[in-house]
């Protein structure tokens, strides 16, 4: 219990504290906690530092975790492989991941269920000096991506939406996103499919916006828990989503200036961007649409990442069902 302090993302002290009263006003459903207040349920969630994380950090920042009697430990990883290793080792209860990730877990006989959606966009950008100005120019150009991930999947979906084959661009594997940014900025590569804050950084730098996952109605990021945790801590997980929704409500309603420092620190925006950051409204957590999940399964099974028999029902779990 003592070391959770080091792993919880705490706002720096000079950031203006968001008012807890403001958050409490939005509470519509009081939690039906049965456990004694002293015995908080521990939920350990693994994530990579990104835009999706903001509501989770706000849950702790706004004191919502205490309210729901949760000990929410957010573990930040620098690589998805490390996160998966920790998850499989039982060091985590849940993760922020995506459709493809859950397909892979399922394929490894590791029963992980999608329990909610998270929000984050993936922007297709072209390098400043690549000469590309629209989707029509990208045929045969090179793009730095990671393989067998949601980036790979999202790229294929965007290409398909623009009536192109998956192999109409040259895919280069570059595991770390900062390296992709650097290659793009230095014209070693033509295209990138980047999440925040990297998209903003390169766009500020003069890169060309070509399209995004959200543009084509794709929201592939989700939160997921193991079936075991869902069975053992179902109430805590449900409370987490209640807290999540409250945090989302607070974010959507409050001006960003009162929590911008937390956002900068969580997502990793450069300090210079302070004041220019915009937050798209977050959606409340719910289960992802069936067509999206099934389309992801189809893609993953084609890549031999999972079996084609995988069904929507196997993939998701409704925390409100019990």
């Amino acid at each position, binding site marked *: 219990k003592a*070391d959770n302090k*080091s*792993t919880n993302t705490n706002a720096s002290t000079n950031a203006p504290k968001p008012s807890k009263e403001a958050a409490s006003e939005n509470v519509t459903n009081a939690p039906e906690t049965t456990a004694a207040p002293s015995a908080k349920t521990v939920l350990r969630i693994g994530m990579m*530092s990104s835009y999706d994380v903001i509501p989770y950090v706000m849950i702790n920042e706004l004191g919502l975790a205490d309210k729901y009697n949760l000990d929410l430990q957010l*573990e*930040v*990883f*620098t*690589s998805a*492989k*490390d*996160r*998966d*290793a*920790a998850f*499989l*080792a*039982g*060091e985590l209860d849940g993760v922020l991941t995506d459709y493809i990730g859950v397909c892979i877990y399922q394929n490894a006989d590791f029963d992980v269920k999608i329990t909610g959606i998270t929000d984050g966009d993936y922007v297709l950008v072209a390098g400043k000096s690549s000469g590309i100005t629209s989707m029509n120019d990208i045929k045969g150009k090179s793009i730095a991506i990671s393989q067998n991930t949601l980036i790979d999947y999202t790229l294929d979906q965007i290409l398909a939406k623009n009536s192109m084959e998956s192999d109409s661009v040259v895919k280069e594997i570059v595991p*770390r*996103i*900062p390296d992709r*940014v*650097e290659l793009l*900025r*230095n014209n070693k590569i033509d295209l990138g499919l980047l999440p925040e804050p*990297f998209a903003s*950084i390169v766009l500020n730098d003069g890169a060309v916006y070509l399209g995004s996952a959200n543009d084509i109605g794709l929201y592939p990021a989700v939160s997921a828990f193991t079936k075991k945790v869902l069975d053992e801590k179902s109430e805590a997980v449900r409370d987490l989503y209640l807290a999540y929704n409250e945090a989302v409500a607070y974010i959507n309603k409050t001006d960003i200036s009162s929590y911008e420092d937390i956002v900068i620190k969580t997502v*990793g*925006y*450069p300090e210079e961007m302070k004041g220019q950051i915009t937050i798209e409204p977050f959606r409340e957590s719910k289960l992802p649409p069936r067509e999206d999940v099934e389309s992801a399964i189809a893609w993953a099974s084609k890549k031999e990442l999972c079996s084609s028999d995988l069904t929507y029902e196997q993939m998701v779990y409704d925390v409100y069902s019990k």
Partner: protein
Amino acid sequence: MIFVQGFLSINLIWLIAFLLTDTPVIPNPLRVYQSFAIVLKDHMLIHILYSLRRIGAGLAISLIIGVPAGILLAYSRRANRILYPLIYFSYPIPKTALLPIAMLLLGMRDGSKVVIMVLVIVFQVIVSVRDSIQAIDKTMYQFIKSTGAGNLAIIRHVTLPAILPQLLTSLRVSLGAAVSILFFVEGYGTTYGMGYYILDAWSRINYIEMYIGIITIAVIGFLLFVSIDYLAYRICKWSYTGSSL
């Protein structure tokens, strides 16, 4: 003196690289040093202490396991038969790929970090202890055997002093490896340590902080290296005598 020289020469190379290229990946060294003060308040000392503790534990455990194992391997024919294939087989296994197993057995805190570090270093120690024992001049043993010395006394009076210089070399090499691996194991399950500091800055494309981290690691490493050299000079006094050639 040496420190200043090394420091300046590296920075000169860096400055030239900065002037020749024009990318944020190689920032102006002057700007980096300017930012040093601002960053020091980022609990740099805590980061350093965390990393030193992990390196210290990793090196100590590796030596405690590696030196006796190397000695056993070099002297005992039976141990050699059993351990030699095992070690030659496990040495090339990329230890970082064993992370899932390490996490499974020891969690994602310092346990698995130190174990991965030990797995990487201990084989280097074993191999170099074994090899340096095999290189000991056989006549070194002749006299000590006539005194009726047991195996422990032989190891203490002949083997260890004879391999000490090479052991210190191996320690230097291992130290380098430990620092590298820090960079891998501090990428998960912690928010302290120099490895984390650099990775974090890197993922935020904050090259200034990243270089501050790298320089800090280099300075610490340099100091540790110089301490090992000083140690070598003190312990291996005999090999520095009579060397007028």
